[in-house]
């Protein structure tokens, strides 16, 4: 795949093995600012593993991860985050003892601690809460919230770090239709602000609506890349999702 010179995130031939299992097999992808890049694939295809490798939670066995022009393969998750990388988790990783406001505040405070950006964290947090539409429940403890809203809190936490690259791991699962529609709008907005978004999602409508490019992952390999329309027509993709046609 041709490397995009604009890319804020480039993954080159990343391979991850768990014992004898190859979870990711020479996976490459780019994320460019202003675009939502979709990553779809059946359960167990390696989507979350790829996110773990990108964020540094799981060191890859081979391959490179670049943020902008910088090779970050050897550095830890904390420093990658400070280079503008943020993610949400499929299996929610919220700070369950804290309220919605406090969850986002933790992230804002972390950024304020290391960066030169000394924006008032209270204001930052309030504007994010407003943006993700959780003003009504801002003081509720997050473990009292339904999953859909929890996913928004994770997104809000990411936004508080002012990311350039945003990895979203099934952000719409647990949301109802209204919530998903609002969420799609927010995603497009974020991309327009110049964030490079990578979206892992099972909700095909959402993916097809907001993504400019879609990668399909199956058994650890990228089996197709293209625009949403191209992907919908792709034989290999149909086979991966629906099984091979009986002959």
């Amino acid at each position, binding site marked *: 795949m041709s490397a995009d010179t604009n890319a804020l995130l480039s993954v080159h031939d990343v391979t991850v093995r768990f014992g004898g299992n190859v979870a990711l097999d020479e996976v490459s992808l780019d994320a460019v600012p202003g675009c939502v890049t979709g990553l779809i694939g059946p359960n167990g295809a390696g989507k979350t593993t790829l996110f773990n490798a990108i964020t540094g939670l799981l060191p890859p066995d081979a391959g490179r991860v670049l943020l902008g022009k910088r090779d970050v393969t050897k550095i830890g*998750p*904390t420093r*990658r985050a400070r280079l503008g990388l943020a993610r949400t*988790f499929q299996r929610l990783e*919220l*700070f369950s003892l804290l309220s919605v406001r406090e969850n986002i505040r*933790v992230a804002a405070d*972390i950024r304020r601690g290391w960066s030169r950006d000394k924006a008032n964290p209270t204001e930052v947090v309030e504007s994010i809460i407003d943006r993700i539409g959780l003003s009504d429940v801002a003081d509720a403890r997050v473990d009292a919230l339904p999953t859909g809203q929890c996913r928004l809190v994770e997104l809000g936490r990411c936004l508080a770090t002012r990311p350039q690259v945003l990895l979203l791991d099934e952000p719409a699962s647990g949301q109802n*239709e209204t919530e998903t529609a609002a969420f799609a709008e927010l995603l497009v907005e974020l991309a327009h602000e110049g964030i490079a978004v990578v979206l892992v999602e099972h909700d095909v409508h959402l993916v097809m609506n907001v993504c400019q490019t879609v990668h399909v992952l199956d058994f650890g390999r990228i089996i197709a890349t293209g625009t949403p329309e191209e992907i919908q027509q792709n034989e290999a993709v149909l086979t991966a999702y629906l099984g091979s046609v009986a002959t």
Partner: protein
Amino acid sequence: MDKFLTFTIVGLTLAAIYAIIASGLVLTYTTTGIFNFAHGAAGMLAAFTYWQLRYDWGWSAPIALFVVLLVLAPLFGVLLETVIMRGLQGTTETVKLVVSISLLLFMIGLAQLIWRPGVSRPMPSFFEGRTPIDLGPTTITWHQAITIAVAIAVAIGLRIFLTRARIGIAMRAAVDDRSLTMLNGARPNRVSMLAWALGTSLAALGGILIAPGPGLEAASLSLLIVSAYAAAVFGRLRSLPMTFVGAIVVGLAEGYLAGYLPQNQYLTGFRIASPAIILFIVLLVLPNPRLRGRMTRSREFFPMPTITGGLGFALTLVVAAVMLATTLSDADLITYGRVFPIGIVALSLVPLAGFAGQISLCQLSFAGIGAIVMAHLGAGGDPLALVWAVLIAAAVGAVVALPALRLSGIYLALGTAAFAVILDRWVFNLPRFEVFGLFEVNLFAGGSVAVDPIRAFGTEFDDPASQMIIAAVAFALVALLVVWIRRGRLGRRLLAMKDSEAACATLGLNLLRTKLTVFALSAGIAGLGGALYATQLTSVQPGNFELVQSLQVFALTVVGGIGAVGGALFAAVSLYAFLPLLTTLWPATVRWVGLLPGATGIGLGRNPNGAVHEIRQGFLPLLAARAVLTVMCVAVTGAYVLRLLDFIDNWTFVVLLIACPVIATIAAGLAKPRAVEVAAGHGAELHDVPVEWRGIDRPWTEADAEELDRRLGLSEVELRGVG
């Protein structure tokens, strides 16, 4: 060469015992996920029981062995599993740890209750007196030969059992996935019962074999088995073959240390502490674990403390301390005054273990460092020594944290416990020594050191009353500090880190720095507690700062509620006010009180919010009824004045002190029935319970059903369609 062989045999014998004990530990850990801190204590109890049957009652060895190893020990294991351990499935690691630590304390207390300490109980080794077997260049005693043979038999037996026997295979399956095993028709409960029976028998076997060496002493025998823990950690608490390898490494290391370590006053303690040192090193060379996300869903609820609440708590405490200081006798003040410095040590656990979830079992060791600093730098009563005590303890805390940072959960607990043993067995017992001829280090001067009372503002605070008030004020200030931390940036950050290190790291948090900060902070607080404790004791020795005390403080703080300052006070009051009071009121209980801290931990350690939470709920109506509260304060003041004027005696005063809040709470309940409802969890508080726990944590209501529908996004049509 002969010497080398001799000590190889010594080492292999130790290795054999450690292997036996450690394999029992691994069995129970793998099948139930509970690291049994009391495993060594089970071996200790077995050794005592064997001594009782064999030497006190004169039973023959085979019968005594049969009864202990094949009847009592398995029964005890089954009892532990069914009564205590089974209830711990799905609880947090802290809770599991507290229960097993409490069990350890309880068993030590039990042994001391049945077999009064200080009485000589000679326990000969097997076939003592028989001529050792000649191996050419060296000899091997019958006890050593039997021990090694038994370990080999255990290894072979376990191997066959786990690979051939049906239930053995089920046991290995249960390790991999408990619920899956159940689905496949095995009965995990039976499997874990068997594992505990077998594990306890192995502990018993090890205990009986090891006891002739060090002799029968409850606490040291229970903790001596730390070496076996090191062996188990070699196998990451899971692999039996690696555990045997670990046992050989640890045993041989100890054997050669015994043979070749030069005999001098500096290294005597080193030999005693060597198992802990080995454990510490083994923990450090373990491969780095991956950053973890959320493990078990915690059901803790640590409400955000309010500033007013914190100030009220601090003020009440200081006023209570002043009342006690002006009414109690000096002897009583010396006894009960310890509540506050130990309370400060317990407070040090709140940010560390409560907020950040970092378990530390060496807080009393940090306190010991504070005490040493106070003794040396505070000579003449310089109050600045308190500051030095905090700073130096904090620095040591940071140094300990550095290697300990790679550890979490049970490994961190073991690491800090090992550190505590290294300090109290070796470092604290070092005589005066010089470092490269540059400066002299003097800790406890090889015995005990005197501590001068603090001198400030031209006064010497050398009486128990003023020392108690100073300690109470310090406790109140530290409590406010902890409340302030909880409400601020650091507190949020620590709670966040406890929940998900992975999330924190991907948000850009420097985990290392955060953990160092909280370790240093906590050690500093413990150092302050130790320094104040030292001024109260006037003379301190290593025995004041041992691991067992750290364990007690940790267990009881968790029982009280490790997430709140009240939990720390609860621990200190239980240990240093309630227990002495009990023995004063009923002297007959004096031998039984040793069981209480352990029993409390076993019984109450499961409530993740702690007893203090319940107590606070009980007082909510009173806090809501301002008028009643005012009347109560006036009544307490009145009683205090009556006591000062000697109209009433101490006991009447104490009874009045207790009666006032009780009566006031009842009165407040009558005056404000609504507040009682709120306290009982009805009314507005209902919505604080997460939706999935409604009907479990509190009764299910119509409103819940409606809310659930709404949250699931079910429309009216869908609902009717379903109905």
